[in-house]
């Protein structure tokens, strides 16, 4: 194991896959000469040349379509969105074309395409540059959606996404790029898409979270342990297809669940997870499933308001206490 930052882990995954498979190439704004707006593609131009590290003009719809066409006839493109906010410019290509080609062609054509870049709450970037974008994509049959929380997951999941024959939306986080963690050096280390991970075992309540919210949930788990609340942390890692089995399995053990998500709560991931827990494990529940979600508001700029937009540790802890019946009630 090496200790790498999340950014380095992604960079390594790209390098390894590009070395392994000449069909893999990277395309997007500033990925080459500038070495990536967030430096995820640093050094790739030097190692692989301009044919495989393709700088594009600002034309998200255009270069996403280029990725789709190239994927249909045998290449394995990795399209970088400078940030996922800009993917909305390409949402027609992603939803109407990438996700539909395999189905509309009755299985004749495949679109082995990864679209990756940062998304989610960032630091004081305001309403257009600081949003949780996964909900725009996980609704769509035909897309796989990945949100890697740790450097190890970043590497293993990105490599699996590149080897996957389906379009994969891979959303990283600006706030996690400098997080360090252990990463296997084995170039065959892959984390299969569609598998959740139990990050911490516990007996009293299942806390489901990913990305920045998982780190917050970890702190809550540590802080509540002395109170005698044992939290089990489950990270779905892939939002579609969702590993409901692992989440349900955990809930059957703990009998309580809290789902945390950074994005606006209305019709969010928390709603989906809460509903399948309720549908499939109702009899196992000792308390209603709670959601702790981002406020149903755009991301404000002001620091104090920004803090109110995403779930705080206090809110998560309060929800855990409520479902455990230990909030004085």
């Amino acid at each position: 194991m090496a200790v790498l930052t999340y950014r380095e882990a992604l960079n390594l995954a790209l390098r390894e896959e590009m070395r392994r498979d000449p069909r893999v190439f990277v395309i997007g704004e500033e990925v080459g000469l500038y070495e990536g707006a967030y430096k995820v593609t640093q050094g790739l131009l030097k190692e692989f040349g301009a044919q495989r590290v393709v700088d594009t003009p600002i034309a998200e719809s255009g270069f996403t379509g280029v990725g789709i066409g190239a994927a249909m006839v045998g290449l394995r493109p990795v399209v970088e969105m400078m940030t996922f906010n800009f993917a909305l410019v390409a949402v027609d290509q992603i939803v109407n074309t990438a996700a539909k080609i395999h189905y509309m062609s009755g299985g004749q054509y495949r679109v082995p395409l990864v679209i990756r870049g940062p998304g989610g709450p960032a630091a004081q970037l305001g309403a257009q540059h600081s949003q949780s974008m996964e909900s725009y994509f996980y609704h769509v049959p035909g897309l796989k959606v990945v949100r890697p929380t740790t450097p190890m997951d970043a590497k293993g999941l990105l490599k699996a996404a590149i080897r996957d024959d389906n379009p994969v939306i891979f959303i990283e986080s600006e706030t996690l790029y400098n997080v360090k963690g252990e990463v296997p050096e084995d170039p065959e280390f892959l984390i299969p898409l569609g598998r959740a991970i139990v990050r911490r075992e516990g007996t009293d309540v299942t806390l489901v979270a990913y990305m920045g919210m998982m780190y917050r949930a970890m702190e809550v788990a540590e802080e509540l342990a002395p109170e005698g609340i044992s939290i089990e942390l489950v990270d779905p890692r892939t939002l579609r297809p969702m590993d409901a089995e692992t989440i349900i399995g955990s809930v059957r053990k703990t009998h309580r669940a809290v789902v945390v998500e950074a994005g606006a709560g209305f019709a969010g991931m928390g709603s989906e997870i809460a509903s399948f827990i309720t549908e499939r494990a109702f009899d196992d529940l000792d308390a209603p499933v709670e959601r702790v979600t981002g406020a149903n508001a755009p991301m404000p700029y002001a620091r104090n308001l920004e803090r109110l937009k995403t779930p705080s540790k206090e809110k998560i802890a309060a929800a855990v206490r409520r479902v455990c019946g230990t909030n004085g009630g």
Partner: protein
Amino acid sequence: MAKPVPRESLVPGVDAGLARRLLGEMLLIRRFEEKAAEAYTLGKIGGFLHLYIGEEAVAVGATSVLRPDDFAISAYREHGHCLAKGADPRRMMAELYGRRDGLSKGKGGSMHLFDRSVNFLGGHAIVGSHLPVAAGVGFAIKYQGGDQVVVCYFGDGAVPQGEFHESMNLVALWKLPVVYLCENNRYAMGTSTERALAQTEIWKFGQTYGIPSERVDGMDVLAVREAVGRAVARARAASTPALIEADTYRFRGHSMRDPAGAVYRTREEVEREKQRDPIVLFRARVLAAGLLAEDDVRAIEKDVSDRIDEAVAFADASPEPPAEWLFTDIYTDISTEA
């Protein structure tokens, strides 16, 4: 007595075999579309059905200069392009019927024909969306060091869309072997080019991007063949993109839901354009040139109508897709609800 026209000048460079092929393919498309319209009226085909009648010379002229390993991609008025590329009319008709033996197992429909066996990449119904995809196919050809080309058909309605301009810029910037072939039939549904475009001479947009561009009579199968032939030769040899504007006309309405197409254009205009019928014109030319005799033409017509009857019978006999297929082909590796 009229002076006999020198035969060569009527159909330069065309022999009887090519004449038979071009006429046969245009007729095949025409009959396919007429039968599809009939089937639609009988309720056997649902949804939107956009007929290619009147525009056959574009698909047939263009495809006649392609190799089987070249690619074609189109919008939703694509029956003609798909047939010309070599797809089996029986499986196409079955697709229109929504049956299990359709090209896409009945899951695509009229607007989403795909046939990988002949490198036909669809069938795309979001106006403008397949232009960048075509650029990507060109990118892959160049990346892999191949010498194929991709022909991308689209309507005048895609020109005001951003993706047209993004695609022109990208293929010019990266020198990709893509021939953009605009079928300017003068209308996008009910909107004439005059009401949609600040520049109605569509080929001129290519000049802005430094792409070799030209306008061609889209009712003349040989003129289309020549223009596309030039563009394909450049694309194959030097990976040069092209923009060709084919001046054409749809004889029917926008779709079967606009059968007459009469609100936004005059009857006189439609009748006048029908005088340019590409099949009538080409038949007259090859007969006058003595390349084919009346009997040959009748034999071609008979063969075409037999093939289309067979296609209809095949579609009629094909069962509906089984219920499990709702969930197959969403992902390559998951065949249940995910």
